[in-house]
């Protein structure tokens, strides 16, 4: 048995996963029009290869990758391209999107399948993952093939598959692990082969015993590790620390300590890409929160507007005050429900009008709870003060750039200080001034 190391800090938000943890994934049919953003990953917008008026098939390439960390985008439906134009995006900015009228036929492009994909060589696996537009589905959206391609001479000790799902609301990874363990195990093996990782560890928070059992049944030689439930156990750096006992150097990348982390949904997408020739055109989304009539987990075509997904979950039983894409801790609040689901949308969380109110902040009483919970071992109260007073050099010296923006400090503060807001501000200023790469 592997000894799970502890990481510093962390919080125990109220576990609200039980609402949807037992709800099987329900496939949602695509709406009449889908809006497929060309930016669903870090990096540059993909470059369209179709034009307005074109007929497209389901799974057909719509736009190709631009730049080293780009990713291609495929059509989630068969139908006609109505427009290529800027549309509102989850990020709050507007992003070019390909708008497609769904003909309801679900006519697929030709797919090359591989009955025994593990036999493929690393290069072929990487190519298929990359061409399928697979990106990190846990939230970061970093193109998976790029993350698995390491600089020459680097050997990986660990491929860590992240099934922690430490955000307090979502259950998408949980359901995937319960319902599709074979796909996840296959994806893990393919990614290990592609990256040359010596061993695979699948890490799951211990509040998901059914997921642990399900994966153990199919794991074979893959190690399944239960990690204690504590936010942010699934943070990349925290997970590496727990599994390997190593710390990713400040400003560095995980492979520098011999590890790469991929999320379970990404592992499954990689399996579908390599085995079935299916590009990433749908994903599982948890729809939850007090105002939701019938919370659940849905397999949603990419490009489906949020409003459509909420309807599938029975609509709102009371007026929502806030709608958040992905987690309550790190997710983004939305201006409206016309924005589409993307490859990184794990969860749609609705809050009631009362829950949505940002509490008034009062003076910091130096209780140091923020210090006690910060997994980066920073002094958030100091960083906030430096940010507020525009003392960016000191913020830099106190490690602002090492903040992983987990929000734990902000969550725990009894004075309801907007700590993370000022820390983000300081980080942006430091990066802008020093022209540091973000």
């Amino acid at each position: 048995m592997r000894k799970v190391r502890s990481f510093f800090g962390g919080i125990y938000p109220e576990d609200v996963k039980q609402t949807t943890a037992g709800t099987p994934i329900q496939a949602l049919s695509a709406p009449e029009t889908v809006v497929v953003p060309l930016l669903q990953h870090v990096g540059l917008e993909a470059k369209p290869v179709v034009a307005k008026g074109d007929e497209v098939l389901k799974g057909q390439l719509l736009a190709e990758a631009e730049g080293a960390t780009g990713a291609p985008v495929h059509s989630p439906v068969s139908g006609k391209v109505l427009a290529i134009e800027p549309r509102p995006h989850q990020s709050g900015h507007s992003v070019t999107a390909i708008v497609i009228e769904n003909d309801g036929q679900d006519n697929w492009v030709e797919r090359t399948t591989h009955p025994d994909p593990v036999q493929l060589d690393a290069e072929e696996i990487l190519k298929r993952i990359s061409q399928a537009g697979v990106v990190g589905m846990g939230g970061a959206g970093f193109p998976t093939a790029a993350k698995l391609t390491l600089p020459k001479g680097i050997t990986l000790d660990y491929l860590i598959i992240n099934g922690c799902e430490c955000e307090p609301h979502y259950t998408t990874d949980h359901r995937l692990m319960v319902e599709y363990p074979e796909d996840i195990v296959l994806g893990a093996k393919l990614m290990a082969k592609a990256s040359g990782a010596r061993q695979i560890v699948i890490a799951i928070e211990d509040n998901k015993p059914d997921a642990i059992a399900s994966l153990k049944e199919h794991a074979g030689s893959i190690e399944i590790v239960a990690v204690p439930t504590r936010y942010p156990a699934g943070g990349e750096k925290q997970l590496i620390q727990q599994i390997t006992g190593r710390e990713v150097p400040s400003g560095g990348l995980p492979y520098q300590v011999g590890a790469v982390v991929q999320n379970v949904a990404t592992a499954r997408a990689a399996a579908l890409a390599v085995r079935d020739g299916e590009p990433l055109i749908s994903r599982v989304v948890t729809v939850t929160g007090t105002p939701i009539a019938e919370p659940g987990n849905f397999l949603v075509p990419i490009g489906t507007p949020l409003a459509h997904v909420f309807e599938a979950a029975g609509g709102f039983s009371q007026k929502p005050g806030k709608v958040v894409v992905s987690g309550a801790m790190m997710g983004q609040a939305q201006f409206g429900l016309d924005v589409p689901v993307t490859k990184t949308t794990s969860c749609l969380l609705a809050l009631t009008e009362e829950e949505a109110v940002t509490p008034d902040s009062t003076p910091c009483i130096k209780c140091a709870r923020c210090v006690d919970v910060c997994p980066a071992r920073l002094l958030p109260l100091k960083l906030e003060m430096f940010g507020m007073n525009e003392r960016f050099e000191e913020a830099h010296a106190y490690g602002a750039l090492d903040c992983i923006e987990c929000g734990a400090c902000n969550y725990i503060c009894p004075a309801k200080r907007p700590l993370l807001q000022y820390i983000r501000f300081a980080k942006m200023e430091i990066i802008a001034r020093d022209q540091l790469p973000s």
Partner: protein
Amino acid sequence: MDDLKLIVSPSPHIRDKDTTEKMMFAVLTALLPVLAASIYFFRWDAVRLVLLSAGAAIATEAIFQRLRKQPIRVADGSALVTGVLLGLIVPPSLPSWMVILGAVFAIAIGKQVFGGLGQNPFNPALVGRAILSVSFAAAMTKWTAPFDAVTAATPLFRGTAHIPDLFFGTVAGSLGETSALAILLGGIYLFYKGYLDYRIPVGIFASVAVIALLAGVSVPFHLLAGSLLFGAIFMATDPVTTPITKSGRWIFGIGVGLIVMLIRIWGSYPEGVTFAILLMNAVTPLINRWTRPRIYGQGVKSSE
């Protein structure tokens, strides 16, 4: 669905339920056994001094906030805590006007001149007591025995006491400081509620005990007599004026214990808790600087 007015704000979107007020009222709850003991032992004097001190503290806070055109935030309970604490650490026979003056000083000089809640380097209640001790030395060292209000010397002044008396509180002393039992009950409550970091009190007790052993004086006597217990549990754990790092809190606690024993054994005053805590308050910014934790990923090498 059509007229959705959604709030857009940065993450995180959920908050812990705890608030500053809840912390302050937890401290007041923890003080209930102490209040009860002080009323039991010292009767109306306890009621009189605690009420006057609390009232004066709240009024001073409100006046300052008003003058500064800040929102009046006395409902957060912090001035009330300061007032009650000060009321509990004065001799039962203190004249009313003196405790009022002390509370005004505690809030005005101890807290508001630095900018109010969270900004003060020194524990306000102790600032109040220190000013009273210096200004009215006689009144501040005039002790009375419990129950019958006859003049009596404190155990520390006499240098000895029956330990069960110290434990239950049947000795002369400040209103709330005599009963170790009542103070410990409050401390256990705060610890259980997660409002008290054990490091500071344990650091204090440990260093007091070690020095008492080395100096060949009674360990239980020095732990239970005087202001030590009350100071360790209710004063040295004030978040605002104590270190923000865990190792810093150990240093703080050990430092307080050390200074207390220096004053008690070799100093010219029988008791030194007030000055020990105020001194350690003064070096808290330094302690914070010395004990900054190593940031995740800093100073580590890549393994390749």
